[in-house]
């Protein structure tokens, strides 16, 4: 019996630990109870109240109950596998600053939700891997964290304070301040600025292509989209290629693409024209390709090393 006690304890503990639930949508739901270690990790990122007289309220933590704080906007964070977030309110002089730090678990998730919310029209600044500011908000991402600051002041002190907070939080997060490596594969020439996005669910309506990153391009006035779906290994990437061939064969037509060895050209009334191929553990789609896509496709293929 004594030998059984540790086992029973472990089983009991496992039952008590917050497990991530798999939703019908495929999104992993954040745990209902946030582990103490996760709370401590987030709390360490919070800036200190800025100077004498400044105050800060007790931090609040959210995970599965994020809807209580941001209502339906919580769903998007869950779609990108939110782990937990911390919210804290500060006062310094007439400025009121709100700090929200979301731990998205992986840099690609943080970029996913950040890129879903950003607009090319935002005023971009040096903050983390990328960030932007306007009158009342400063948002940036760094590593696995998406940081959202909100500030109000009638005397113009909110913006400098938000910048200062962003710098302090960035230091506390530490590590490199680079965007996810997969984004470097997207050629810069012709790319629409800040159009890169990473999608966790059903890119182009195909669940099997998830997860994927995309960017828009303009070639001679015509818009194209490049999508790179990343798999665990080359076999899975090839399987996705076969699924795509099957899809186009069923919904339209598919043929070999002469512009790149091993590529195919599919067309259907829904997707229009698409060139697709696999390299390493990646499956690549160029939707609405330009008339001469050969050089572009070769460049993308050459950038995919694994």
């Amino acid at each position, binding site marked *: 019996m004594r030998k059984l006690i540790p086992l029973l304890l472990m089983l009991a503990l496992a039952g008590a630990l917050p497990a991530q639930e798999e939703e019908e949508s495929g999104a992993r739901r954040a745990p209902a109870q946030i582990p103490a270690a996760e709370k401590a990790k987030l709390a360490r990122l919070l800036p200190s109240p800025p100077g004498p007289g400044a105050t800060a309220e007790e931090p609040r933590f959210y995970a599965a109950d994020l809807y209580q704080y941001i209502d*339906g906007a919580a769903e998007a964070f869950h779609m990108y596998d939110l782990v937990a977030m911390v919210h804290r309110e500060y006062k310094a002089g007439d400025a*009121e600053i709100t700090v929200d730090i979301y731990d998205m678990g992986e840099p690609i998730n943080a970029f996913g939700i950040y890129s879903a919310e950003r607009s090319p029209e935002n005023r971009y600044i040096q903050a983390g891997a990328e960030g932007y500011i306007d009158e009342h908000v400063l948002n940036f991402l760094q590593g696995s964290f998406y940081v959202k600051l909100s500030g109000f002041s009638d005397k113009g002190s909110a913006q400098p304070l938000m910048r200062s907070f962003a710098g302090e939080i960035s230091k506390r997060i530490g590590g490199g301040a680079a965007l996810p490596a997969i984004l470097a594969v997207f050629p810069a020439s012709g790319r629409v600025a800040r159009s890169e996005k990473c999608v966790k669910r059903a890119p182009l309506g195909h669940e099997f292509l998830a997860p994927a990153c995309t960017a828009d391009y303009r070639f001679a006035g015509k818009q194209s989209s490049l999508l790179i779906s990343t798999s665990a290994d080359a076999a899975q990437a090839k399987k996705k290629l076969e699924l795509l061939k099957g899809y186009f064969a069923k919904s339209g037509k598919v043929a070999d693409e002469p512009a790149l060895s091993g590529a195919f050209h599919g067309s259907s009334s829904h997707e229009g024209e698409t060139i697709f191929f696999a390299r390493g553990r990646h499956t690549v789609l160029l939707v609405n390709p330009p008339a001469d896509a050969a050089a572009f496709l070769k460049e993308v293929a050459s950038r995919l090393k694994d």
Partner: protein
Amino acid sequence: MMNRRDFVKSAAATGVALLGPRWLEAAPALAIARYKSSPAAPDGVAEEARRLTRAAIDALGGMGRFVSKGQTVWIKPNIGWDRRPEQAATTNPDVVATLVQMCYQAGAKRVLLSDNPCNSAQRTFPRSGIQQAAEKAGAQVFFMDERKFRKMALNGKILKEWPVYADVVEADVLINVPIAKHHSLTTVTLGMKNLMGAVGGTRERFHQNTELTLPDLAAFLKPKLIVLDAIRVLMGNGPVGGSLTDVKRKETIVAGADQVAVDAYGATLLGHKPQAIEHIVEAGRRGLGNINFEALSPKIIEV
């Protein structure tokens, strides 16, 4: 004392509406007031809000159509977020204040105003500007008291019972004053979604079947008048928003007694066909109003 719900039932039973004054029969069910210019200065936007609100209500036959002497009115704006008016996450304060004034001018005894916000009420009420503007106009603005939520029989398809703020149901008239916004879960947040701020309970339960829960709530609360603020519209990243790049000026106030028609028109302002918004379709299907707002021959006013 007959409360609002009793009155609605009684009016329906006796055909009071059909026996009403001639102007009431001729009054349109939907009015759309649009501003010809797009002022940038805060004073200009405030003037726009006041003029559009008055024009829309006047086009419906005036506030006297909805509020009678001695009545208690509950005004329900969106005060859910710690945001300033220019961020377009909360209802324009001057729209709200104008409605308060018009209610008193119509003879209201009391105008009550509150919301059950997502962010702290202590921050959202003053930040939105609604608390100051409504109080100045004479409304009683207060934070909701947890103890006043009462479990009520909604008898909806999903919501059989739900905690609703007692004062809302006990008021003679409910005026719903949402702002038009994108919503990442329900695509749009307009009138019916705004009613969630009149109830308690867990929001997640609502979110599991919004296409059914929102019509359940709309069928129970039956606002007598809906005034949709679409002067500034949050086109993306709703309902929270924050970034001014997500805000587009539409310079419009929509008012009506038909909550489905108001939402249906509101959806078009956000670039959606109302037939694509599930809870609007469901509410129309249940007979809560007319999704085909054009059929109501809306009165369009250019100011």
